[in-house]
């Protein structure tokens, strides 16, 4: 167990160091989410009346597509460098390597959320509070587990750019339903915030367990 944690830590650290030095992904994703807000503004004619109704949807759309890019990139880079195999040909367990990759990718997405959430509050004039941040962070955990599993899979398949959203988005729907509810409540709509977040935590646990069981079949031959 301590071995697995050490491996996951090393892998996550390696990915984050690479990202810190090249700054390939996070700045681009940050720009992307701000652009998404700008487009939403023109698409929806945002004003102070409708902002809190539209903002949650815009948030999840921007987040989902930023997530697809972040998770897809996490494994596409390994594939381009042919380095995934080198990692797997060590005694380290596939689940630990997968966990490290997923943690790093989730942290990169969180960095992008750190741009998205304040920008949303600023540009749409919606409330920015701890509930909002907590709901998005909790949803990120399970989404990262699922997203990275399928990103690892499609990295070895032709036309992966098309296939990743096709496989991942349907499986993310539960997170978007519960997360959408939680964010709506956090922005002032009626409903139960606690129930939505409890649901998100249940989904997190379920999919983290399932993906760590499946990681071996996806990564190793």
């Amino acid at each position, binding site marked *: 167990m301590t*071995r697995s944690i*050490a*491996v996951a830590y*090393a*892998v996550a650290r*390696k990915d984050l*160091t*690479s990202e810190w*030095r*090249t700054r390939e992904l996070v700045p681009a994703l940050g720009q992307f989410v701000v652009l998404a807000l700008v487009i939403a503004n023109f698409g929806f004619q945002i004003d102070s009346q409708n902002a809190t109704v539209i903002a949650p949807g815009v948030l999840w759309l921007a987040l989902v597509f930023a997530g697809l890019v972040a998770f897809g990139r996490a494994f596409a880079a390994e594939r381009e*460098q*042919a*380095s*995934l*195999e*080198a*990692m*797997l*040909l*060590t*005694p*380290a*367990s596939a689940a630990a*390597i997968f966990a490290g990759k997923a943690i790093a990718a989730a942290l990169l997405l969180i960095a992008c959320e750190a741009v998205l959430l304040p920008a949303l509050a600023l540009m749409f004039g919606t409330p920015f509070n701890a509930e909002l941040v907590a709901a998005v962070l909790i949803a990120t955990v399970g989404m990262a587990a699922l997203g990275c599993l399928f990103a690892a899979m499609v990295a070895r398949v032709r036309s992966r750019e098309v296939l990743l959203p096709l496989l991942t988005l349907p499986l993310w729907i539960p997170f978007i339903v519960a997360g959408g509810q939680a964010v709506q409540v956090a922005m002032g709509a009626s409903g139960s915030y606690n129930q939505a977040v409890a649901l998100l935590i249940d989904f997190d646990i379920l999919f983290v367990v399932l993906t760590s069981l499946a990681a071996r079949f996806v990564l190793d*031959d």
Partner: protein
Amino acid sequence: MSAIVAHEITQRFGSDVALDAVDLALDEGEHLAVLGDNGAGKTTLLRILATAARPTSGQLAIFGLDAVRERKALRAQIGYVAHAPGLYPALSAAENLEFFCSLHDVDRKRVPEALALVGLSDVARRPAGRLSRGEQQRLAIGRAVLHSPRLLVLDEPDASLDSDGPDLLASVMRGRSVVLATHDHALANRLCQRTVMLRNGRSLGAGTRLRVVR
């Protein structure tokens, strides 16, 4: 004791047969060259020997252990240099090796030793992406011996090495069992005691020195 005993190794991809019932034996400490044209099945065979791929059928024992069931244990004893170096371009040469130290659970003190062995001590702090192709190949070789493996599996390691490449390979291979795939018959004769010829996924027999089989 035998390092490798492979019996009727067959690899299919869909309906294509990449390897067709290949037999192979390697004694401990022996150096074997696998020769053959592109597409003959060299890489497929080496990937199987390195436990990166499992054969569709056939038995493979490495150091007496089953290569499929006990591959976790075996991976600690095998070093593999693939076609592509598989390095992280943003990390320095030393950091690349340090990362693999933590995956192999070996002491980081091995890093300077490995770098010295492949002659990269001077560029240890340079990002791997800024190393020349030959230096990257050396780094990949250094990574393969990081955990002091008993078996080395080398897939065309000479591809981008410069003139002192054979000497470097000889020093890395010393004292280990080695399977080396190459196009270069002279290199095979110089570094290996025995050669195997592959053609279209079939083994054309083994000889102590290369013989022309056309």
